[in-house]
């Protein structure tokens, strides 16, 4: 048995090789980064974000709250989410109803098979 070699049924996976590769690539990226722009100057205007000439919003105010993240995703999938969220009523009668419904469905499937 090779250390770190996992058989997946269709192939192999070795985490140690992955880690070593990731470290080598990481070192390469850092080396490239250090070879970057020589005219870069810290704490000057060139490091500030450019917002079409508007003043930069304070860092505290620019933090995007959890409810706003993936707004586009949920908006695009509105037709999927609306009925799905409605099903989660929080009502224990509905919870019990789902159990009975699933039992009936499995009963039919197993019964006729």
């Amino acid at each position, binding site marked *: 048995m090779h250390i770190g070699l996992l058989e997946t049924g269709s192939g192999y996976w070795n985490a140690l090789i992955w880690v070593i590769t990731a470290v080598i690539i990481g070192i390469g990226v850092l080396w490239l980064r250090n070879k970057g722009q020589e005219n870069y100057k810290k704490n000057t205007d060139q490091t500030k974000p450019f917002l079409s000439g508007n003043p930069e919003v304070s860092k505290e105010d620019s933090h995007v709250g959890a409810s706003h993240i993936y707004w586009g995703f949920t908006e695009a999938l509105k037709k999927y989410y609306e009925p799905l969220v409605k099903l989660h009523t929080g009502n*224990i009668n509905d919870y019990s109803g789902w159990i009975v419904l699933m039992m009936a469905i499995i009963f039919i499937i197993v019964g006729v098979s």
Partner: protein
Amino acid sequence: MSSILMHAPALVIALPLLAAFFTPILGRFNRKTISWLASFTLGLTLLLTLFIAKQVLANGPIVYVFGGTEIGLTLPFGYTMPIRIIFQIDAMGIFMGLITAVVAFLAAIYSISYMEQHTGLDKYYTLLLLLATSMFGMELTGDIFNFFVFFEIASISSVALVAFRSTISGEPAEAGLKYMVVSSISALMVLFAIGLFYGQYDALNIATIASVMQFTQLDKIALILLVTVLSMKAGSVPMHMWTPDAYSEAPAAITMVLVAASQASLYALFRITFSLYNVTLNTITVGWIIIILGVLSMFIGVTMAIIQSDIKRLMAYHAISQTGYMLLGVGVGLAVLTNPAALESYGIKAMEGGIFHIMNHAMYKGLLFLTAGSLFYRTGTRDLNRMGGLAHNMAYTATFFIIGAAAIAGIPPFNGFASKLIIYESVYQFNPLLSIIAMLVSILTLASFVKVFHSAFLGPQLEHYKSVQEVPKSMVLAMATLACIIVFFGLFPELIVKHIVHPAVMALIDQARYTATILGGI
């Protein structure tokens, strides 16, 4: 010493059970020592479980007859079936036992600081110890009525623990009530199914019933009841709705144990379908039922998680989603159980992926719930909208969260990747679409945890959290231990798969060996 270790299967149950009864008495004299007693007891239980695991994996299944003249004498002279309560511990049972032991021990360690300021600690630790006892019982017993008893103890102690913080607001009580109702329904159905077995076969021992199983109409009804309620208790969609309520309201350490308790029900589902019914049932039909429940759980779980803003509800939906992977992997194994070529080619691997995922999930989801608990401990909120910039003050918690989130999203080299990779590749050979859905769910899982990380940890330090500090050492220790396990399992997955997971899968598949362990013939 060896004569004590001979009774290890009984001690695994007896120690936490005795400690549970002793805790309130000790609490009368010294409140602070209760947490240490619970931690010590569960630590000792972990050592005993490791000892049993070593025995089972080296020498094969162990049987322990309660009240018999000899520990291993299942059939005294003149008897054709076992009449006593028997613990039958094979590789699958002890696999689950190990998960329970690790999770319960770390929950106790985490609780030392997390629950320090709370009142009613004697009750808290009594219930935690009872919950651990019942989970061990469910996983180690070979008697189906005995299983029901432990199943009930697990439900009752879980309900009380979910509702433990009811003094703060009414929501934990509501969650506890909901959990109590669904647990009562499931217990009733399990009891009814046991009645159907007992009425037909005059037996309660699982191996004995399996050896005479006729798959009559009554057996079919029992199967339907058991598959439905056990998958519900495991949190599968569409019977999952109690899960976010219960997981989010329970104290963080308890939520971690509840995840393992749900997995004990999942284990029971697999034990029933493989060890009790096996090829007598229509494996393709029941296998596909489990697969469909798995796919629904994966997809609906993760899509519901993405839109949550309560960190624990979000993680609870992910727990549902991850249960889907386990159902998918093992469902594929069941669907091809009667096809030796397919079973050999990918069925066993799919089951290995599913079973390995149970252990991985218990570790990383446990860690994630503990990090959520740490955030709640310091900020007093579970609302992600009110959090931000906490990595500045809670560097350890942030690091542990990254490890847990990377593991659940299936990012290499963490443990979640290893089990998911096995599932993807083996399930692909069964049905490529299922594998693609599983991969898509992983991507959505990553997206969801990126949202949590951004909302809670990134960004500038918020004014009202400037004084926040890292959590106390016992909480860090519990999270660090889980993080180390996750990294180790991720770097050396083959050690776990070869020595623990594969024997567990073979123990599930080989029904003849399971029955012969009790009734003789091996």
